[in-house]
């Protein structure tokens, strides 16, 4: 496990460093700027989907779904970051404790 952790951490750091050492002009085209701008939204949205609806490799509805829906409502009500997270966790915990969803 340790080699996995150290190699993966080294690769993660290398990726972070690359952006600070490559010459700015390399990625300075309109298309690459547009792609760069979309990358975080696309990848984070994909992660939201997996962490809400996927368990292992199976799709399903469990207590995370009402939690994330509650977070969405909190965002619509312009709640601050911390309130959004706590709301999601609390709703998921309550739904689970009541045995409504696993």
């Amino acid at each position: 496990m340790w080699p996995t952790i150290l190699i993966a951490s080294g690769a993660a750091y290398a990726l972070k460093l690359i952006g600070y050492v490559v010459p700015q002009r390399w990625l300075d085209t309109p298309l690459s700027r547009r792609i760069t701008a979309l990358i975080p939204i696309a990848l984070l949205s994909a992660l939201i989907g997996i962490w809400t609806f996927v368990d292992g490799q199976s799709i399903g509805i469990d207590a995370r779904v009402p939690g994330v829906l509650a977070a969405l409502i909190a965002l619509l009500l312009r709640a601050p970051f911390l309130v959004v997270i706590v709301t999601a966790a609390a709703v998921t915990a309550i739904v689970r404790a009541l045995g409504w969803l696993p």
Partner: protein
Amino acid sequence: MTMEHRRAILGDALALGVGTGVYAISFGALAVAAGLSAWQAQALSLLMFTGASQFALIAVVASGGSAAVAIATSTLVGTRNAFYAFAMAPVLDARGPRRLLAAQATIDESTGMAARYEGDRDSARLAFWATAGAIYVLWNLGTLIGALGAGLVEDPNAFGLDAAAPAAFLALVWPRLTSWPMRAVAIVSLVLAVALSPFIGAGLPVLVAGAGGIVVGLALGARVREGGA
């Protein structure tokens, strides 16, 4: 920069740190549940320090994936940090040892906070470093609590912490979904990732879905405000 403005930035950074620390508890507990020791969980938070990659790595380990797949998956998930770094380089103008530190501090939250102060370099720098600092401390503290407490609680998910991570990422993406093409990018990526999950395992759905979302976004002419990435 006025004292009040400074205090507002530091307050936001601290709030993000606390929120992130909450789901670090979940990370620590899940890492131990996946078979890592508490030290190994802590090493990931100290050295890797990029939440999505850390979660991706332990998800592969928990599902019995090989070391090569675990490394490849976490690395692919962390690829976006290279683009964040590229965007932050001219803002931070970090040199020498500071540049090495800036690299480690480059994550979703620090970049996102700095992007809110576009055109105000002093504020952007303060937001970047304060957010990264607050999250580094609280992310590692949360990991420690989660990893050590994992044995005490039969099911860490009883506290709903598994919903904290997607909620936090939703909160990060939310301010950027200001136009329909951008919303299309998010929805296509989300739906595609879920739909692909039963067929391709170990982190690949995120990348394939993300690529699909970006293609749709480019086709629809999605634009983020300059520097809003």
